[in-house]
């Protein structure tokens, strides 16, 4: 146990440092190539951390908050590569590099349950696709939110950042949808009920519905002024689904107690 923790501590610190260094380098456009190389190196360290977690518990490492935060970090770089190629959002490299480091900060301070046991309810073929789709969408939704915040401070480029945020959220939304509905299909297999309004499910539905509101507000000119509030509300709901449902006793989720 001590050995695993020592390795995890080392990789965790290294991944944060390398991601942050990549972000700093990418602030200078002339250092873009070096910055992207360092970003890739940070992703490699992050991937090594996921592998260590996997080897330590002998199962896909999605057993607790520590595991999934490490995995969320891993999702930013592939998401960046896809969005850069597909939507021309290569200029967001610094945003993706910095935000990659953020989810790893929590695990430095939290109790890390490296050894994890997969209970029978989690032994389903839906387990990995459900979690991976959710974590991938969460990473992109985080970037979408960060872009809105940056746009808020950079008035001249606000429109550009809002559009980039929209394209990021648009790409993330099918993953969020698949994550939620694959969870429902899995719940039907495990418990015989696809939706039970458990707090985690309720907040997942609130998050999804608020992103639907966001998309609809973008389509009508008279609703455009609600676009940013809808996105902010959706992201706050996402944070509630991801963190608060597990942390606040009032919102304690009985069916998702092991998440």
């Amino acid at each position: 146990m001590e050995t695993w923790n020592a390795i995890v501590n080392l990789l965790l610190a290294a991944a944060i440092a390398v991601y942050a260094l990549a972000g700093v380098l990418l602030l200078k456009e002339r250092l873009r190539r070096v910055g992207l190389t360092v970003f890739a190196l940070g992703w490699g360290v992050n991937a090594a951390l996921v592998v260590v977690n996997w080897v330590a518990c002998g199962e896909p490492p999605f057993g607790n908050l520590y595991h999934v935060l490490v995995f969320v970090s891993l999702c930013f770089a592939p998401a960046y590569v896809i969005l850069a190629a597909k939507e021309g959002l290569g200029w967001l490299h610094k945003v993706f590099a910095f935000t990659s480091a953020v989810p790893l900060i929590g695990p430095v301070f939290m109790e890390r349950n490296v050894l994890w046991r997969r209970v029978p309810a989690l032994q389903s073929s839906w387990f990995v696709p459900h979690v991976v789709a959710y974590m991938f969408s969460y990473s992109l939704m985080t970037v979408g939110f960060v872009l809105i915040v940056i746009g808020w401070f950079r008035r001249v480029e606000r429109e550009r950042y809002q559009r980039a945020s929209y394209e990021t959220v648009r790409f993330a939304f099918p993953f969020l949808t698949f994550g939620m509905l694959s969870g429902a299909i899995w719940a039907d297999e495990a418990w015989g009920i696809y939706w039970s309004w458990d707090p985690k499910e309720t907040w997942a539905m609130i998050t999804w519905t608020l992103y639907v509101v966001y998309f609809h507000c973008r389509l009508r000119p008279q609703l455009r002024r609600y676009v940013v509030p809808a996105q902010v509300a959706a992201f706050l709901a996402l944070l509630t689904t991801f963190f608060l449902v597990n942390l606040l006793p009032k919102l304690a989720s009985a069916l998702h107690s092991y998440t």
Partner: protein
Amino acid sequence: MSFSVAILTVLVLFMIAGGISVEEGKQAIVFRTPMFLVLEALACICMLWACKRRRPLWRQVAFMLAHAGGVLIMLGGAITHFTGEESTFALPIASQHPIGELPGKTEGQTIPLGFFVGCTRFLVDHYPPTEYHLYEYHESDRQYHFIETLPIAEDGSVDAGSHGRATKSDLCSADEWATVHDLGDGFFLEIGKRTPRHYEADLRFSRTAEALGESRELRVNHPLRFDGWTFYLMSYDQQQQRYVVLSGRRDPGRAVVFIGFWAVIVGTSMLCFRRNARRRREDGSSHGETTADGGAG
């Protein structure tokens, strides 16, 4: 569309209220109130109206799938709500008396199955334990008193300090961990909470209470279907393994809901993954003019 946004916003407010204001485990009550059902029906009407206004239909496949899928989910949910049956019940293990009806939602109410079901076998496999509890026996009151919880070290031993030490060979033989271990001088180790790795039950279905029917294996995440009913292995008696807890459901709306799920997944993927018009325009009109920033702006 403004009306749709208004309906969705009210639904969100309702869900927030239901999600945080009701006592633990009772959230579902809020979502079965007439007000919430009316809101869902209005959302359905909005989706159908949006589908009706889209022309030509064949060019709007993604839009149709995403919106009609939502309608199907709610329709299937309504079918389940009004015609489905569900019961969670304890089934004795290796009992000679299979059951032919399930307990209903209200006390005294029963749901006839139309066949009989019994549990012939149950098996549970645990992960190795991680801790033992240290107890001391007091002659004065003839009771065992809990002292502390001790972790099992990496070499499989348990160190109880001045009260003694148990090695892995003391505690485990042939992968079976001792439930209780005597350290001497009135001190005992009792095995801590055990996490199940796997459990399964054999169910036997028959048309009459006396006949021996087919036996089938039931596992978590692998429900069994028989004669329109689906049985799920929920839990078991962790103390003495006298019964398993099952859920039995007859859900005519399930297939409709699942078609809706996949329609929404495919529809939203088609809507969101296709390249947007702006990018297509950029690629078409100014090919090769993209800036280092990717041309956005």
